[in-house]
């Protein structure tokens, strides 16, 4: 569906995307995971044929976006990071009008709008103006809008950023259904849980470069341990405590607010900590996540 090789984007002297390679297979759900400013959205814009690359090769649905922008975009569904719904139209009006941008006959647009409002659980708000909808509703409407042309490839840029937990779960559920129906998804996110929920395969991006690639489980296996003990000793005492813990576990990460100890058995770590006479103010043991993968790869946490 998508093949990028040495894909590069420069804005003046600034290199936003620095020669990345990746491929997306049909029916796959593929993720770009990285902090804000890593180059994810720029990559999405190039794949979406609305931004010309500065170098490298890119084909989307077998076509070069530099030459066939309209033809590629006709088969894409795009959910941008910030909703850009048409504030002057109703929910239904947004879907119908957007379909017309693809040259789809009005009657077909109308029928799909009804189906998509149903899918987005917005049938009752069909005639409400966009401004009257909640954040979660707007997001679902944006996703419904991206489906109006029955795209072969759906691209979602930070689909749930800014939503409350409940709204996020509704949205994930809708996206999961699309995945089951065989829609190819490309998702960017800086949320671990989202990447784990939605992506079968992902690349970790930082500073415009790909740091690692694999399924969420693979990445965790490769770059982290099974469990993590999170220990908080208080702002000024984490460093000192970490020195005492140097030998404990497989690996240590010292963050400003806590110390992370990676090991296959987290409970055993807590016992060793106590045995060394340290008494953290709080401690917890959890499964390793993609957050830990990112920390390992870049030395930074994803949300700063």
């Amino acid at each position: 569906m998508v093949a990028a090789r040495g894909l590069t984007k420069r804005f003046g002297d600034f290199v936003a995307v620095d020669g990345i390679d990746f491929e997306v297979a049909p029916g796959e759900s593929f993720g770009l995971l990285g902090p804000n400013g890593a180059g994810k959205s720029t990559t999405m814009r190039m794949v979406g044929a609305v931004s010309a690359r500065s170098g490298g090769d890119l084909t989307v649905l077998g076509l070069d976006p530099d030459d066939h922008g309209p033809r590629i975009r006709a088969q894409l569904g795009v959910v941008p990071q910030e909703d850009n719904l048409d504030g002057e139209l109703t929910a239904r009006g947004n879907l119908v009008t957007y379909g017309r941008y693809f040259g789809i006959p009005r009657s077909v647009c109308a029928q799909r709008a009804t189906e998509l409002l149903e899918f987005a659980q917005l049938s009752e708000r069909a005639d409400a103006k966009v401004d009257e909808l909640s954040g979660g509703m707007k997001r679902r409407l944006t996703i419904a809008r991206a489906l109006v042309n029955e795209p072969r490839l759906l691209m979602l840029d930070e689909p749930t950023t800014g939503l409350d937990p409940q709204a996020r779960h509704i949205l994930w559920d809708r996206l999961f259904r699309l995945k089951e129906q065989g829609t190819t998804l490309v998702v960017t996110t800086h949320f671990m849980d989202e990447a784990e929920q939605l992506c079968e395969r992902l690349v970790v991006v930082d500073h415009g470069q790909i740091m690692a690639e694999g399924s969420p489980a693979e990445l965790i296996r490769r770059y982290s341990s099974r469990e993590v003990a999170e220990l908080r000793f208080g702002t000024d005492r984490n460093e000192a405590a970490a020195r005492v813990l140097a030998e404990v576990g497989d690996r240590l990460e010292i963050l400003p607010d806590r110390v992370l100890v990676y090991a296959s058995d987290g409970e055993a770590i807590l016992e060793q900590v106590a045995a060394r006479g340290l008494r953290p103010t709080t401690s917890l043991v959890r499964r390793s996540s993609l957050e830990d993968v990112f920390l390992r790869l870049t030395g930074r946490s994803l949300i700063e």
Partner: protein
Amino acid sequence: MSDVLAPGRSGGVSALYAGNARAVVARNLAATKTSNWTVVLSGFFEPVFYLFAMGVGLGTYVGDVTLPSGLHVEYAAYIAPGLLAVSAMNGAVYDSTWNVFFKMRFARLYEAMLATSLGPLDVAFGEISYALLRGAVYATGFLTVMQVMGLNLSWTAVLALPAVVLVAFGFASFGMAITSLMKTFQQMDWINIVLLPMFLLSATFFPISVYPAPLQWLIQAMPLWHAVELVRGLTTGDLPPSTWWHVVYFVAMIGIGLTVTTRRLRALFLA
């Protein structure tokens, strides 16, 4: 598309235009339906207010005006075509500048449109077509008022309608080119600053013969003077052969405006 004739990296016009500008027009019509109708109607009333206040009220003090050909016309018949041209200019400029700027930078409407199979040229043509459509409706209304008041002095007044559309096209394509170069609202304020002198000096309210020659040349270089003269010639029937130069002026303005717009849109949206 042929594989043999692989286009260069610029992609040609096919990367900018999908031949679906009517979808953008349809969007604007749908938005108009839900908008405040009083505001929509106000575009018609503004020139009518001016016509009554200036043409009728001030006309009692001004008396007749002599056209360059020597024809005497009453003051209302003199300024009515001027007001028609001015309202065509104002409408086209507003639609292609403030309106486009807002949709581009704030409503982020074009971002959504350009994620579809539409290209920047579809958006530009669609916006201009809608502006012309609206301008034509207002102009028809105003010409009707002129007819009722007996201010259309010749059958050629019918041609004032296509003339107004031409004028609006010129201002809209030029306005869009300028908007594509603007970055802030403050820069947009300058557009109004350019419009005011054209409005006050361009023979809208009185012949430019009162001005010293250099000022007259300056005014004659401005688009509004050509618009006013063209429309006035048609509604009064005072049509010297030089009228064609006004048409040529606007055709050139359209050409330049669209060329710049296309280039800038490519730079803005496909960079």
